[in-house]
């Protein structure tokens, strides 16, 4: 097919990373794999000796695993939601981010719920949640929503990749075993294109409410409980905003890394990042608004139990973490996003936001446990080596999955870039 030849040549830079694996790949993949395998060992250790190997106890009975759970599910929102919204609104500048965003979603959704598996006292019985479902439990709603979201996200990522896989099937005879079944016989005919268009249209619309539902229900795991400062009506939108916020930051971080490593400067231009920066700015403000509203309400009208938690965050034991969070989630990124939406600026802002949002989840979950309603049970919490191993193992696994993905599939959607270009041309004429 001469057409595919021409396209492949044109998008050489997108395809090259899949053909060449240099020392840099191994230097990244091997340490990541080592950290990941270490976390598998740590999990084995915990499974053998019990959850007592973590730093959890009484009253802090949920800790780092739940923080990681909420954090990764949050990251996953980026993906599908951002790329679906940008597609529906025909925001052409979103195209180069699409593939990366969808992949981030899928891998983050694989990493997030894994934490629940770590957190179970009897991990091997996790499927009982489906088998003995008790529909009044927010955790069951969670399970349902996340599984739905995961399935739809995988389909979303895959369907949008089919034309590219068709191209790869023609380009890489050595990897036919992989690409041929995945390409579903894609040849790019008129009929296939229209079917694909319909499927994408449907998926875009389906994925938005599902994504919103997922973080809503994740927030309800906390918001529907009696713990002070969890029991809040704005938790659902607060969590959804926070999720998209950290998600956008994750997309920016991931694509800047890909751009640098795979030399994709022609596709990911400062113009694209400027727009992405504006989107991030909107969510910085939304996040700050929600946070302010939440803390003001508790501070002004909250009861004794709520105040105990609030002051432990503002001036007490968790003050340092809390104010670091405020700095990382608002004070630092806000001026950057207003005045300097350049690549280095965005890189700093997104790293701050990702770390800041992790701390946000920590300061939402742990202090409420430390100061429960009745004033006699007090405890402390410090994560153990097992929990840290699992945290870093998941982060490494997530990154490794992305690295491997980028070696098998184009990280920028070739067919959509081509389509956008043709549309632009026809408009110009």
């Amino acid at each position, binding site marked *: 097919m001469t057409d595919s030849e021409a396209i492949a040549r044109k998008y050489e830079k997108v395809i090259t990373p899949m053909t060449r694996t240099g020392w840099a790949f191994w230097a990244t993949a091997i340490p990541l794999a080592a950290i990941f395998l270490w976390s598998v060992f740590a999990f084995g250790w915990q499974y053998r000796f019990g959850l007592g190997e973590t*730093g959890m106890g009484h009253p802090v*009975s*949920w800790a780092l695993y739940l923080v990681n759970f909420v954090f990764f599910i949050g990251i996953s929102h980026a993906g599908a939601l951002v790329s679906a919204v940008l597609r529906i609104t025909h925001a052409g500048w979103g195209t180069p981010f699409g593939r990366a965003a969808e992949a981030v979603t899928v891998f983050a959704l694989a990493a997030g719920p894994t934490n629940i598996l770590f957190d*179970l*006292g009897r991990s091997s019985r996790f499927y009982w949640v489906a088998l003995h479902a008790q529909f009044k439990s927010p955790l069951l709603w969670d399970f349902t929503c996340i599984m739905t979201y995961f399935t739809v996200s995988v389909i979303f990522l895959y369907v949008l990749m089919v034309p590219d896989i068709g191209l790869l099937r023609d380009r890489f005879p050595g990897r036919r075993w992989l690409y041929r079944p995945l390409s579903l016989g894609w040849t790019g005919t008129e009929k296939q294109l229209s079917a694909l268009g319909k499927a994408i249209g449907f998926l875009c619309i389906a994925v938005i409410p599902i994504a919103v539902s997922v973080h809503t229900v994740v927030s309800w795991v906390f918001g529907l*409980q009696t713990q002070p400062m969890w029991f809040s009506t704005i938790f659902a939108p607060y969590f959804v905003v926070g999720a998209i916020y950290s998600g956008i930051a994750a997309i920016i971080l991931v694509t800047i890394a890909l751009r640098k490593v795979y030399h994709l400067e022609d596709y990911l231009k400062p113009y694209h990042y400027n727009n992405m920066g504006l989107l991030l700015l909107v969510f910085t403000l939304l996040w700050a608004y929600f946070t302010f509203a939440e803390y003001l309400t508790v501070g002004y009208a909250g009861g004794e139990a709520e105040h105990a938690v609030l002051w432990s965050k503002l001036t007490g034991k968790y003050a340092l973490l809390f104010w670091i969070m405020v700095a990382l989630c608002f004070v630092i990124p806000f001026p950057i996003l207003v005045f300097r939406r350049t690549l280095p600026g965005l890189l700093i802002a997104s790293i701050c936001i990702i770390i800041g949002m992790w701390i946000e989840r920590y300061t939402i979950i742990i202090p409420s446990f430390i100061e429960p309603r009745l004033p006699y049970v007090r405890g402390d919490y410090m994560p153990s080596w097992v929990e840290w191993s699992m945290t870093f193992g998941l982060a490494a696994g997530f990154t490794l999955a992305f690295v491997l993905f980028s070696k098998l599939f184009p990280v920028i959607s070739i067919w959509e870039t081509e389509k956008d270009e043709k549309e632009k041309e026809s408009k110009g004429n």
Partner: protein
Amino acid sequence: MYRWGMVIDLDRCTGCQACVVACRQENNVPFAGEQEAVLGRGKFWMNFISEVKGSYPDVKMRFFPIPCMQCDHPPCTKVCPVEATYKNPEGIVAQVYPRCIGVRMCISNCPYTVRYFNWHAPAWPDDYKRGRNPDVYKRRKGITEKCNFCIQRIRTAKWKAKKENRRIHDGEVIPACAETCPSGAISFGDLNDSNSRVSRLSKSRRAFRLLEDLGTKPKVYYLKEGEWHDG
């Protein structure tokens, strides 16, 4: 139908903590050990809190035994994703150990923090093991356990009463904590029976329940200190 309840007279409580020990013995509550206890992993189905006010010689001390409140609207049961905990028809919030998968959402949603988790496999000192109660269900690592008003004793009493074709008499069945209390501070019985001791005491002017504003409707009542011969 019975509706089991407990009344703890704080005025009579001397703070001897015999209830804590008796409960541990009756229900095979494992020993956490010093190291684990520091991490807050000690299990006390019957927990005991003391508060010291003032300094020598003008010291006031208050005691507070805290079992599971056996709420009528338990926040813990509805959040369990596998229905491992439920309120049984007689009002006892029961834990089904083999069903529990250790999610711990019940623990975090219990405002009284009286649910306990088996962080490690349960352990006892060797010479203690022989004295374990054979009537109590075994627990394993990774599951939640809690006070159940010595449900095994209630079951035995019910069998006996059924054989004799009668209801359980007031005071016929009492949990280990109430049985052992030297000052008789803990009463136990059927709240549905308006003549029972707990029924009368729970209507006393001194009676109150913990965190009533949460609407959990506990079936453990406390009697305030200070007024004798009132119940």
